[in-house]
């Protein structure tokens, strides 16, 4: 894991990812999340799923364009914790952000109910952030 890395590793990685996706826009920054890339269209830069779904301008919170599953009940939590103790759904919920088109799970958050959503984003190139809650 800590071994020497090729100087051109980044570009090899991007090339491999570019071959894997079904669209032609060049990937500028790969793997913001796995399968969630930052390609450059002729006139804009967007956050994009491997399936081709665009989440919009890269400076905005991509989660605004996602779908969400909120596990905030014992029944919903039991689906992923079938045989052990559960988090208390009155104190904690699990939010799963998925691609609206292909259903790929892009992010999971564990949060207290009522959490403001502004601080759950990352921006690699800009200080801009979008409040979504």
């Amino acid at each position, binding site marked *: 894991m800590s071994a020497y890395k090729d100087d051109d590793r980044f570009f090899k990685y991007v090339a491999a990812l570019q071959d894997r996706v079904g669209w032609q826009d060049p990937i500028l920054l*790969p793997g913001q999340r796995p399968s969630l890339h930052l390609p450059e269209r002729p006139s804009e830069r967007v956050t994009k799923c491997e399936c081709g779904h665009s989440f919009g301008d890269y400076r905005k919170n991509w989660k605004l364009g*996602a779908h969400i599953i909120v596990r905030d009940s014992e029944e919903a939590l039991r689906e992923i914790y079938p045989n052990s103790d559960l988090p208390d759904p*009155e104190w904690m919920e699990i939010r799963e952000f998925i691609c609206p088109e292909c259903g790929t799970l892009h992010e999971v958050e564990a949060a207290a*109910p009522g*959490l403001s959503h502004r601080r759950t984003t*990352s921006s690699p190139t800009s200080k801009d952030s979008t409040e979504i809650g």
Partner: protein
Amino acid sequence: MMDVMPIFHSGKLVGWAGAVCHELEAGGITPGGDVALAQERFTEGLFVCAEKIGENDEIRRDYVIRCERNLRMPIYWVLDEKAKVASCIDMRESVKALIDEIGLDYWMQVSKEFIEEGRRAQLARTRQLTVPGIYRGHTFYGHVTKGKPGYQPLGDPDWLYNIPIEMEITTDGKIIMDFEGTQPWGYHSMNCTPGRHGRRHVRDADPAHELRRAGQRRRLDGDRAEAAAGHLDQPRQRDGGDGDVHGRCCCRPTACSSGFCRAPSWRAVSSRRPSSARSTSPMIEMGGTSQYGTLFGMAHFECAAAGSGALAIKDGLDTAYVGWNPESDMGNIEVWEQSMPMLYIGRSIVPNSGGAGKYRGGCSLPVDLAGQQDRIICGWSRRSILRASSTMAACAAAIRRRPARSTARCATPTSSSLPRRSAAGAPHGHQPSSLGAGNAARRRACDRRGPYITAPHKTGDVFTHSYNGGGGYGDVLERDPVEDGLGRRERLPHQGGGRGVFGIVLDEDEEGYPGRRIWRPRSATAPTIAPGSPVAGAMPVSEWIAEERGTRRRRRLRARGEEDVRQRHASSRRASPGFLRFLEGRCQADLRGAWRQSHELLQQGSHRDLVAGHAALAADAGAS
């Protein structure tokens, strides 16, 4: 506790030798080293400021007497002090011998170059492994303490800490932490200084972690840390406890790691993505009369060996990972049994107790202990009600992680046949049931939330405790079901886990070997379904936000009680102008007034005023 010793050569200070130990016992209001129930600093036990404790390689007698008078089990503290002093002397003599060999001038030059090299290497490594920018994460830490034995009336009944972080990686490789929005101190044992917040973050989550020991120096932005609060802002406020500071500062890497996890993947070095799901579990603390007939008190560092979080390239480790440093381990049973009047019935691994994912989290570790003496009390610390932030354990804030299941628990002590069997020289099994200690359901019948301390045990009582598993990584749909153990007997910890948790079913050939993968939802609402299929139970985020702003959120908050949320936001507002502006821009009109009143109370008075104010607000809300 850390000891440092100056190194002089030819009358010149040429360096310092240092050694540090975790201490088993600190002489607090409850036994143990963390003193989880110490809500004020006045109940935390022995205080040792940065002070001189010896001369001419000898520890002062008055210091040793002070330790003996203030600790339940001073033998370990004093022995540790002697060991640390001895190791410092050893280092000092080695340095002096080296200087004799290479010359003082060369030493003075090379020692500074070594420090500078570490600093530059850290910056270079950060530039190599990350992408500059702003990374944000969020986690929580909370305890349900209302009605618990041992809690003092000063503390809030229950508390919930809001822990945001904004981490900036600059183009020259500097890492700047901003904790704005974190709440201020409170009457509990888990307050944290800003420096410790930052150090813990970086130390546990930094992808360039191998450089930690290369002498590099890290610096916190003092202004930002101060503004963030969420700590004991000494000297202005010094009442709260911080004996169990790890309880909160260790859960912060959960949020920090979300940034450190993303940064390497952007640079195509996912293998360097750190395991953010660190493994400090709830720690057992105990005390009473030892098997030697003397007072004892200790924190059980077996908690070092919970399950680790999954990496981006492999599963987490089962019960074998230490988050804070690689030198620690869970310790041998026989060694622990020498230190405490408890005998191990056994250790085991809980199948499927790590978080689900493409790579699963490490499994948890339950232990069963039987008392050898009467009047032993056992407790556990650092148990957040929120699994995601349970002291570094299960990190869902990192990329696509699901937290580990809530397996951490302690059990009500029940009597067993161990004393009778021991007296007869009869063997005993390795499960509590083999000693007639009641079934698992009975033994688990205790409050699993928050710090906890038992009523005094008697000889033969069985105490069961389970350490955390780690969080998973990625989508379970991407997991190889064969690797998951569906068809491999040697992977017993996850046998059947794929079917029950992941909604994965394998075709089997005529001889029963796994064949073609089939992805099937386990239920109509399960999200783990075949790629390309519509996901049942999902909704657009915009619709969810609208619901959250509306009746649904209010219904949920009301069901739980709004006090903790109000208090959380109000106290964050006091410490954080940015968070105040954010809240006022988004909160509902009917809550805005209540929060403003809370804020005014905070500005005018103390934490106690706030609690009283909340009670009044709640009464007003109920009346209206």
